[in-house]
């Protein structure tokens, strides 16, 4: 294999180049820290990425359909606070059901605004970012709730089944569902079609309204789910949680190959990008780089990866 054909192979396969980056970073990490290659540490990495990863999966579907959802961080907090109002009953099921319903309702409103009222999604979800956050504060009076008595709820963040943390299983469930939806179900092609060219998709009989409602509801659902995993892990349902998560989730999805202009993005790409982020943060912590400098490094890496991504796009 010549250098040129290797380069072509590398640049034509976005997922392969992502996985290569992932392996390269992991290799570096294992050279830097001897504890990197251990089952415990890998579990740790995935568990840390579960919350952002779940949100990024929802975000990926939204981006594929040509929209963006800036409200996910606020939706997390709002739906969790709605769920927390039912905590007095002492049962987990109503809390979980209420949280997921609230998240999907926020998504439904976003979807209606974007598809029926034609508000650009950046504006619609920017408005929702402010709106859902303040509703969450109003519902809870700005007070955190402590769900430690709800065993079922706590299981989401702290439990483990067959030796695997439930948070990872939840994340895996979302990944599998997203993968099924995008590649095997009828919805997948419709999503890509609407995102690539809405007019053409509508003319060929795809309901853009249905697609947009679906992606926003799914994004709201993912946000609510991520909010529960996070709350259960921390043992606290906090109305100010998730601030800035929307931007991290977008960064993960975009580095995974999704485009802000729609029609592009894959589950495996987003998953690999989430793992890359997870490994990076893990290295920083193992080496002992403080949180503030981590932000600077991550920013530099995002820019570098976006630049390389652009090179690859142009090479194809």
């Amino acid at each position, binding site marked *: 294999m010549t250098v040129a054909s290797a380069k072509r192979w590398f640049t034509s396969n976005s997922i392969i180049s992502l996985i290569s980056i992932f392996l390269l970073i992991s290799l570096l990490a294992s050279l830097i820290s001897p504890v990197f290659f251990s089952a415990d540490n890998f579990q740790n990495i995935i568990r840390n990425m579960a919350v952002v990863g779940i949100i990024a999966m929802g975000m990926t579907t939204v981006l594929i359909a040509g929209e963006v959802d*800036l409200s996910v961080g606020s939706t997390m907090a709002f739906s969790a606070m709605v769920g927390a109002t039912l905590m007095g009953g002492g049962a987990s099921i109503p809390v979980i059901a209420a949280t997921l319903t609230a998240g999907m309702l926020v998504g439904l409103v976003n979807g209606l*605004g974007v598809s029926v*009222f*034609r*508000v*650009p999604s*950046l*504006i*619609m979800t*920017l*408005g*929702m*970012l*402010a*709106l*859902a*956050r*303040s*509703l969450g*504060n*109003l519902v809870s009076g*700005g007070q955190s709730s402590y769900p430690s008595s709800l065993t079922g709820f706590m299981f989401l963040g702290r439990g483990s089944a067959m030796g695997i943390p439930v948070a990872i299983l939840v994340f895996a469930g979302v990944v599998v569902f997203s993968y099924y939806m995008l590649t095997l179900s009828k919805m997948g092609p419709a999503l890509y079609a609407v995102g690539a060219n809405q007019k053409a998709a509508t003319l060929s009989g795809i309901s853009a309204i249905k697609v947009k409602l679906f992606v926003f509801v799914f994004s709201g659902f993912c946000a609510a789910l991520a909010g529960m995993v996070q709350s259960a892990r921390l043992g606290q349902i906090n109305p100010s949680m998730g*601030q800035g998560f929307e*931007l991290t989730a*977008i*960064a993960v999805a*975009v580095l995974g190959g999704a485009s*802000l202009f729609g029609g592009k993005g894959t589950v495996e790409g987003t998953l690999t990008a989430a793992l890359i982020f997870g490994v990076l943060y893990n290295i920083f912590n193992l080496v002992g780089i403080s*949180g*503030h*400098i*981590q*932000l*600077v490094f*991550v*920013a*530099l890496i*995002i*820019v570098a990866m*976006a*630049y390389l991504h*652009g090179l690859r796009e*142009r090479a194809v």
Partner: protein
Amino acid sequence: MSTHDKAYLHPEIDIQTTGESWWNLMLMHLGRHTLLLAFLVLVIIGTTTSDYFLTSANFTNLLRTMSVPAILALGVSFVLIVSRIDLSMASQMIFAPVVGVTAITLFADLMDFSVLVRGNSFTGSSFALVVIAVLTGGFVGWLNGIGVMYGRITAFIMTLAMMQGLRGMNYYLTGGHAYYLQESTYTWMGTTELWGIPLSFMVYVALSVIAGISLRYTLVGRRLYSIGGDERSAALAGVNVRYWVIMAFIICGVLSAIAGILFTSRLQSVDAPLGFGYELNAIAFAVIGGVSLAGGKGSPYRVFLGALVITTLLNILTLWGFGSWYQNLAMGIVIIVVIAIDQWLHRRSSN
């Protein structure tokens, strides 16, 4: 000037007023003056429901609250006009004065004197601080522009990374502590007012007038609007797209730094966590003022109206005793509803 240019500068000429029903005409005029009408309605509501609304103290307060986010909105308008976006404004707003303080402190250390006394009180030159801050703003804007135009990184991602990176730098440079900026010239900037009009608002108006004139009557406006309208055609027509887009980012950076100076001079301190979320407010102000995210549209006058309406609304809510939660709630609803109505009117008039 070609008719093409005229259509950008005078959006009203593209309206066909012949053969329209009175109802459609009324809707069109409403569409043109919604913000002014909304402002008048708010003033009437404010005057009738609160004794304090029409006092000079409240007036001063309103202008003061408005100017910092409005300057950010003015800055982001330039970037939005060329159909890019800047999410790093709020971080830049804090980064610029932080770099100013850090640079002067380092210089003073080299010269063997100290400008940080009693813990973290900054006593160095305010003039130098302002100059360094503005240069820093321009530099960061230039970096954003370089990343977008030469690195071909989507503006959303480039400025998102800049936002996070600068936030990290802010924490790193300040060491997580606040700097107290109580040098007399600096506090003068934050507190001085003339006939009840705070300095920050005068600065904002001056910047808006300059921006308005240069966008409407000079080459700057023609180039920026043409890039936002159709970048490819502009490039084919010989416009140096890279130069003008980078220029738009630099203008946005400089205005963010100026907003940061006014913001910190009012607080008399600068601290890394300040200004969180201001970028989204600024974009909301601009968009409510009619700046299109798709580019090619927007004027400083309408950004001013957008900022005025939202700030007045929030002011009335404060006077009624509603806290920041209700204010954010109202802000979210207003953004969505205004744009939904705008889209509806637009579809009607284009049908």
